[in-house]
C-alpha cells in the first residue's frame, strides 16, 4: 500500500521543497499559534494542503475516509483508475474580504491518492459526504475475496 500525504505529482523539486516548508510552517504555526502572523506566511502559490485520510478494511470492502471540512459536494472529485483512488477538489473561502484578522486555514486545490491493495468492483463504489467527512466505500472484487475451500478427503 502506498499513500503519500503531500501529493506533488508533476511539480518541480523546488516547488515541492517549498510545499514541505509551507506544510511544516503550518504545523509550527498551529503548535505555537502563529505569533508571527501573516508576515512570514508562504506565498499562496506555495501553500498546498492535503486532507487527513484513513483506510479501513473488512472482508468485503475497503473504506477510505477523508477530512474535508467546508466543501460543497460538487467541489469534490473522485476517480478510480488502475486500482488507485484519487480524491481531489478545491476549497473556496467563505470570507468576503481577503484580509482576515487571523488566518490558519488552507484553501485552494488539494489531491490525495490511495493505491488499493487489491482490486475493487468499480461499479459498486459509493461515496457520502457528511459533517465535512468524505467516506468512500469500495467493495472488493469477487475474485479477491477470501474463499473457504473445502478439502475433500477421499
Amino acid at each position, binding site marked *: 500500500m502506498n499513500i503519500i500525504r503531500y501529493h506533488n505529482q508533476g511539480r518541480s523539486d523546488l516547488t515541492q521543497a517549498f510545499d514541505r516548508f509551507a506544510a511544516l510552517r503550518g504545523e509550527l504555526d*498551529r503548535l505555537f499559534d502563529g505569533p508571527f502572523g501573516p508576515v512570514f506566511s508562504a506565498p499562496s502559490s506555495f501553500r498546498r494542503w492535503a486532507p487527513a485520510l484513513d483506510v479501513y478494511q*473488512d472482508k468485503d470492502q*475497503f473504506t477510505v475516509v477523508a477530512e474535508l471540512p467546508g466543501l*460543497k459536494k460538487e467541489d469534490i472529485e473522485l476517480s478510480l483508475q488502475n486500482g488507485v483512488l484519487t480524491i481531489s477538489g478545491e476549497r473556496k473561502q467563505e470570507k468576503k474580504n481577503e484580509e482576515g484578522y*487571523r488566518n490558519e486555514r488552507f484553501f485552494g486545490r488539494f489531491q490525495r491518492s490511495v493505491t488499493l491493495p487489491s482490486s475493487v468492483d468499480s461499479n459498486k463504489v459509493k461515496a457520502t459526504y457528511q459533517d465535512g467527512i468524505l467516506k468512500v466505500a469500495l467493495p472488493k472484487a469477487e475474485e479477491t475475496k477470501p474463499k473457504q475451500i473445502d478439502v475433500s478427503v477421499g
Partner: protein
Amino acid sequence: MNIVPQEYQKSGQQSTEETAYVAPYVDIESTDSGYVLYAEMPGVNRDGIQITVEDGNLVLAGRRQPLSVSGEPMHQETRQLSYRRVYELDPSIDADKISARIEQGILTVSLPKAENLKPRSITIE
C-alpha cells in the same frame, strides 16, 4: 482588538477520552459590525457543538460523532479527538448576540459589536 487564543487545553494528549482535545484551525474575519470566526471541526454535527462565554472567555467545543466504519484501520491519519479552543473576548463584543451555525464541519460564529460601539458618522449641525 483582542480575540486571542487563550490556551491549548491539553492539546493532543490522549490521556482519557474526556480530557483529550485538539485545537481546530480557525480563521477570524474582521467586519464593520464585529468579527466572524470560522473553525474547522470535521466530524462534528449540530448536537456536538458547545459554545460558552465565561469570565470574558469564549469557549468553543466540538464533540465528534463516532466514525461508523466497519473493519480494521490499515492506515490512519485522522485523530478521533474532540475539539476545543478558548478565546479572550474583546469587551466591545455583545456576548448576548453571539450566534453560530455548523455546516459540513465548519463552525461559523458571528461576534457582533455592541450597538453603541459601532462606528457611526456624526453630522455637524
